[in-house]
């Protein structure tokens, strides 16, 4: 089971929402999807991107949790918050660089993707990877992926100077060896002039502004 890994290929996503619905059918959080299907530059493009928990090797969400509610199991899976411990402070929501944890006010608790721990811990594939028709989400061995796909899997992320290594891989062209995400310091943001109107502001689009 350990040789199986989770792969995301954003370029293959067709935005069909199958993963979202499969996720919300899970018995542990029925009716609530924990996978985020993001739209990318919605005015110009139909590109979508599925976002599951990346399961960082050193999970920032768990590091900032004041209630010891987010735990990482020995197989590297970062679990969703424990109901008796989570105090709903949303520290993890703010800390996660991937925007995965979300605070759920109805249950006053953070809920996030746990790689379908009930399934993967018994050798089955996660719900979303089972239903994805285009292979944007895949739960397979590295050999299988390397045979079937172009590009290569990468799990090194640099957010400014902070290095994050994740359990989940993202498939990228071979010339990309790591992700560099530049960070805008808050001080620079305060000094900068007011940003222009966001052309991808969906709410503004819907209101006809």
């Amino acid at each position, binding site marked *: 089971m350990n040789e199986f890994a989770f792969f995301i290929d954003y370029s293959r996503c067709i935005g069909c929402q199958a993963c979202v619905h499969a996720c919300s059918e899970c018995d542990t959080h029925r009716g609530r999807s924990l996978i985020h299907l993001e739209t990318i530059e919605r005015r110009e493009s139909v590109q979508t991107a599925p976002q599951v928990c990346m399961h960082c090797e*050193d*999970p920032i969400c*768990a*590091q900032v949790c004041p209630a*010891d509610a*987010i*735990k*990482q*199991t*020995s197989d590297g899976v970062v*679990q969703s918050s424990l109901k008796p411990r989570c105090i709903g402070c949303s520290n993890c929501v703010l800390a996660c660089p991937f925007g995965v944890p979300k605070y759920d006010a109805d249950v006053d608790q953070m809920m996030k993707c746990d790689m379908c721990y009930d399934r993967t811990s018994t050798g089955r594939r996660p719900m979303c990877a089972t239903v994805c028709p285009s292979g944007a989400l895949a739960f397979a061995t590295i050999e299988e992926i390397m045979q079937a796909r172009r590009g290569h899997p990468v799990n090194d992320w640099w957010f400014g100077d902070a290095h994050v290594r994740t359990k989940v891989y993202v498939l990228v062209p071979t010339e990309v060896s790591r992700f560099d995400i530049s960070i805008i310091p808050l001080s620079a943001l305060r000094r900068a002039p007011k940003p222009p109107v966001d052309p991808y502001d969906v709410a503004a689009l819907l209101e006809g502004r």
Partner: protein
Amino acid sequence: MDEPRWRQDFPVRWDEDHYVTRRELAKFLTLGSGLLAGANAMIALIGLTRTPPAAPVQRIAGVNDVAPGSSLLFRYPTSEDPCILVRDASGRFDAFSQVCTHLSCAVVHAPGEDVLACPCHKGAFSARDGLPTAGPPTRRLPRVVIEQRGDDLVATRLEV
């Protein structure tokens, strides 16, 4: 360890957590209560097999040393055990341990009264039989059995 102490207590990784399992707790409780029961049994066995040392026969005072209605302090069976000898108005002698059965204060006798009073919590014992009559004590004072031999009062044993 460069990790702070609180992080060691609350690690992110679940397998580094020091959980006490139900089985460990059950094992500890079983062995602990077994040990306790065994120790109690040992103490009981020692108590059954060992005979207490015979109480010494000890002269307390002369009959005429204590006037009717007054009292006299002495130590019996060892010099660590304070006792009190009381003579009532009719001339009868009674002796008791002076240690209150509540919290071990020394009971005192007021001349002319048939009461041994404990000043600590206003406990009172009858000076006739040592039974508690007032206050917190619930057990009687141990009686020192005395005999009159000629003109001497002699303590022969302690009646708990």
